[in-house]
């Protein structure tokens, strides 16, 4: 099992959920988070520059994002990543990032099932 953590744009959540549900992975945890990437947030004056030196402290230090966490079996990781990347790619800075982490075990609380059946 692998945990796929995708940090994506706020407005892309619905179509991302639909895309992964179409693959057969409807279960996700979504959270509203704040974050920034290599560009150190968003800078204004001159408008929408991405270089922190031009911004001189104006602008947003963090940008609102959505964090999508889902646990998928090993063999499906690649297709899930592909689906998330395709639905979220606009080609502009701020499309987000995907992390893949190992998961040791999963337990369904209602029945106590463990491992792959529980996800």
């Amino acid at each position, binding site marked *: 099992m692998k945990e796929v953590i995708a940090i994506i744009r706020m407005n892309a959540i619905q179509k991302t959920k639909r895309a992964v549900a179409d693959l057969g992975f409807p279960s996700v945890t979504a959270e509203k988070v704040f974050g*920034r990437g290599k560009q150190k947030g968003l800078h204004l004056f001159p408008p929408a520059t991405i270089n922190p030196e031009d911004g001189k402290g104006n602008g947003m230090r963090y940008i609102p994002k959505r964090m999508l966490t889902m646990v998928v079996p090993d063999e499906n990781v690649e297709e899930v990543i592909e689906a998330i990347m395709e639905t979220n*790619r606009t080609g502009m800075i701020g*499309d987000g990032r*995907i*992390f*893949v*982490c*190992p998961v040791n075990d999963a337990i369904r609380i209602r029945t106590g099932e463990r491992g792959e059946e529980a996800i």
Partner: protein
Amino acid sequence: MKMIRAIVRPEKVEEVVDRLADGGFVALTKLDVFGRGKQKGIQIGPTKYDELPKVMLMLVVEDGDVETVIDTVQESARTGSFGDGKIFLTEVEEAYTIRTGEKGI
């Protein structure tokens, strides 16, 4: 790669973030969370606070940078009293940038 999740005091967040940025770790995600530690919250007079507001900072760094980041967070988030927070370290196998599809951070 490793994911570092640091749970720190809300008032210390900007200091920690600035210190990390000075060290070259600009990219991070922050979440507002509630939690408690070994002290089971805090009791002030008759009022018991079971869950205290904290901020979780999440950043993924290369293996070699882990110690630097942990030291930076520890130094900047420490006040010496209970509730300074915790740092958790987990493994990350892969990272992708969605815009380019590239692997790695």
